[in-house]
């Protein structure tokens, strides 16, 4: 684990740079990334009349911040920033390496898509509530991906959970409120497990900073208890089988853009924390735990896929697809090689974009037809070619067929499973792909029927259709231009040296 010195080491070098690069180099993008959405959220709350424009502006600004951060990471390697100038162990540190960069980049990209989609989706009264909540959630996400302090992670996790619950409850209706309540209770339960684990960890090693803990950690009963508690809490939030029961209802009953951000981003946050801890702190834990995660992941892949096939409503189908796809991420744990981590991360990245596109497409279908019963989709789907194209392209990634990000991820994970001799995880990957093909084509085949395009369908704003399509196209591009994101993941070597 390296301790990079942060920005601005060689002043002579800087003198010769252009103003643009000076700005890029000197501004602490890592902090701006957190403060910007929070400020934006507050501004949206205070000025509801211009909240839509403020929201879009903030999303755009976040993208440029990510780009700035990426530039800094390219130039100087991994970044560490001490908040307030106090350093760890007492102060709170922010840390950015390739892994966090990929996460904030995904959040920013998908976030922009969601912002654009929501600007057309919500009516005035709902929009006033949506924008502040959404921007706070953005801020929480960014803070989570950039924190190096495990208690800070708890705070961000809670903020994330509360805003997500509030967003789910935006949909009104008893179904949404029920799933929001259940989601809230689950969130609180998970966070408390996590916090108890943090308490034990702190007591054992005297620091809350991940880097410092990584150096000090030693096996002991307290640490094992802590690891167990933290993992339990995070797995509950990531909806790993069998703790996935809350997810389909919550993701399906929320408004479409909220479903998108839940499936794409929120569940990935707790996974990220687990991954971080696993890479830095948990290596003392024995192999049995990794195999357990792989086993549960496989169960998730198969169970989620089978359940998705049985659904009668589109949004529930997509939600169960999330349960299934999340299972893939856990296959990397028993494989444990650098290539497996990269594969899982690429899967995370592709799934985020693809699932967001899919939920947006489902939202369009729901908006046009007033219902999302799969059996009756034929007439609506004929009217929405752009949306169905988006759904199909996203589906290609979910199935893991080329050319898509999902295919690249599948290839990497297969390579890892064959190389390490644990071929059964590869078999799960392939089976999951077959199940995914079954449920994706179940929906897509409705386009090719003899049903007449219905005239009762409501108009879907072009912006909503195009956002879904653009995000779906991004996933296809991820399948062709894969070397750049893969190189990005390497910055700061979060996965250790090769193998």
């Amino acid at each position, binding site marked *: 684990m390296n301790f990079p010195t942060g920005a601005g080491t060689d002043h002579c070098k800087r003198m010769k740079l252009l103003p643009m690069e000076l700005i890029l180099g000197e501004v602490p993008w890592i902090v701006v990334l957190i403060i910007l959405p929070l400020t934006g959220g507050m501004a949206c709350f205070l000025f509801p009349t211009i909240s839509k424009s403020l929201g879009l502006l903030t999303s755009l600004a976040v993208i440029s911040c990510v780009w700035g951060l990426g530039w800094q990471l390219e130039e100087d390697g991994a970044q560490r920033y001490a908040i307030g100038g106090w350093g760890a162990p007492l102060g709170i540190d922010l840390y950015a390496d390739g892994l966090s960069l990929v996460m904030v980049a995904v959040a920013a990209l998908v976030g922009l898509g969601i912002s654009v989609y929501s600007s057309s989706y919500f009516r005035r009264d709902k929009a006033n509530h949506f924008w502040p909540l959404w921007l706070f959630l953005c801020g929480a996400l960014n803070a989570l991906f950039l924190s190096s302090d495990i208690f800070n992670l708890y705070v961000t996790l809670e903020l994330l959970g509360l805003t997500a619950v509030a967003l789910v409850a935006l949909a009104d209706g008893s179904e949404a409120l029920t799933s929001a309540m259940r989601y809230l209770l689950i969130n609180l339960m998970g966070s408390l497990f996590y916090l108890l684990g943090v308490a034990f960890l702190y007591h054992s090693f005297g620091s809350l900073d991940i880097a410092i803990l990584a150096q000090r950690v030693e096996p002991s009963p307290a640490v094992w208890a802590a690891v167990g508690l933290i993992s339990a809490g995070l797995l509950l939030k990531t909806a790993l089988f069998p703790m996935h029961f809350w997810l389909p209802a919550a993701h399906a009953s929320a408004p479409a853009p909220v479903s998108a951000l839940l499936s794409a981003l929120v569940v990935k946050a707790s996974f990220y924390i687990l991954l971080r801890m696993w890479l830095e702190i948990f290596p003392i834990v024995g192999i049995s735990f990794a195999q357990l995660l792989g086993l549960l992941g496989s169960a998730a892949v198969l169970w989620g896929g089978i359940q998705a096939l049985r659904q009668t409503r589109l949004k529930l189908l997509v939600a169960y697809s999330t349960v299934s796809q999340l299972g893939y991420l856990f296959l990397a744990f028993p494989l444990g090689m650098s290539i497996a981590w990269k594969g899982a991360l690429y899967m995370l990245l592709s799934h985020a974009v693809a699932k967001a596109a899919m939920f947006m497409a489902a939202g369009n279908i729901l908006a046009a037809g007033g219902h999302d019963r799969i059996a009756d989709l034929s007439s609506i789907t004929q009217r929405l070619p752009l949306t169905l194209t988006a759904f199909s392209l996203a589906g290609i990634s979910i199935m893991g*067929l*080329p050319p898509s990000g999902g295919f690249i991820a*599948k290839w990497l994970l297969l*390579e890892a499973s064959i190389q390490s001799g644990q071929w059964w995880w590869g078999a799960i990957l392939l089976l999951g*792909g077959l199940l995914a093909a079954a449920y994706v084509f179940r929906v897509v085949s409705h386009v*090719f029927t*003899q049903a007449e395009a219905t005239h009762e369908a409501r108009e879907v704003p072009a912006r909503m259709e195009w956002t879904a399509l653009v995000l779906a196209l991004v996933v296809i591009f991820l399948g*062709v231009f894969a070397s750049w994101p893969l190189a990005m993941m390497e910055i700061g070597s979060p996965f250790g040296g090769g193998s």
Partner: protein
Amino acid sequence: MNWNTALPLMVLGSSLLPGLMIFFLSEEHVVARTSLNLASAILKIVLIGGMFWGMLHGHHYESRLALLPGLDLVLRAGPLSMLFVLLSAGLWLVTTVYAIGYLEESPYRSRFFGFFSLCVTATVGIALAGNLMTFLVFYELLTLCTYPLIVHRGTEVARKAGRTYLIYTIFGGALLLLSSVWLYTLAGTLEFTDRGFLSGLDTSLHPTLILIFALLIAGLGVKAALFPLHGWLPLAMVAPAPVSALLHAVAVVKAGAFGIVRVVYDVYGIEFATDLGLTLPLAILASATIIYGSLRALFQDELKRRLAFSTVSQVSYIVLGIAVAGPVATIGGLIHLVHQGVQKITLFFCAGNLAETLGIHKISEMNGVAWRMPWTMAAFTIGAFGMIGAPPLAGFFSKWYLARGALDAEQDWVILILAGSSILNAAYFLPILYIAWFKKPPDSWPAERSFGRNETSWALLIPTVVTAMMTLALGLLASAPFGLLEWASQIVNRGFAQ
């Protein structure tokens, strides 16, 4: 970027971009759509012609894109690729004309032609693929692009056929993916190399390589309709005739066979494959398919289904040629790739003409139809005799080379298979000809459409006649200096030790 790197991409783009544009055209823009279709088909042939000419003059065409560390997407022009790509592009032009005529007044034409163009793009990608990864990418793309064409009509039957098609092809694709990744971890590369890249591997890996070969053949065999993976093909006949023509002559089935050629020659290498003992089982499987397909064809009354089973049988000639593992037999297999394509497309065009003009779908309805549609049935006769293997038609040469190759390689039993299947071919084609030419026509046809003095519309007739002419030409010109035989020999020589 110079011509050498740009040209393969341009060849791909010549159908990809117009295809995407066609999706956005509304149904009424007939002229725009037709012009786009024809223009892109012609452009593609021109570009490929240019690439071929350049290749003959020593230019090296290759486009690369880094996909994963150590693996690129590669498009490369070589003798084998050019064989397949010229076949595809040429037949695509003909089929485009045919499809424009066939689908006049049908709904969803923009959607159809969009996917049609994407299919050809995928096929060209398969042809030009320079490594197994690129092949896999375009192979799966082909599955995705052909599905909408099969279910185009939207009927329950079409959708069921589409579902079956998907089940077979996606399963096959998964096997292909597994084998590709496995080979990559073992060999560290997937580039197609003359004489293969696997012979240098440690002998302890040989059992694994045999297993991988089986997986590869299974994955490719789905599309190549090897027994018992052929189940989707007869069902896919519900698609409109241009789709059946394209699928059976060029795109899907040939892609599978082409893949098998690539695997045996440029991944394993023919000598290594023989050493591992892989060629004999493959030959047996191919022979079984040949006989099975011909037998099933005998009992079909529906014309397109009989032709479908005939395809199942005929494509395996290509695989048999490869599996017999001698240079002469391989030449036979390769030229049959072309011949079967041209002949089969002729037959399907005729079937389409009969269905469109007279509403005939069954052979029992074809009494005396030759006097009503002489040009069509003449073309059918040529195609049928080619299939049977009568000289001087194209099919004769393929079978002759296959037989001679079998003798050379001391696999005499293959001759029995060839002879047997030729007899069966005659058994299921000659009755059709007899019925069409010599039986008394009924008083009225099932659903006649009049085209004035012509037997059917120009757009349907001309492609049929053209491909029939090509069958004749390929046969007559087979031994000519720049003929197909020369070309095939060149390809084959690269695969065998000098």
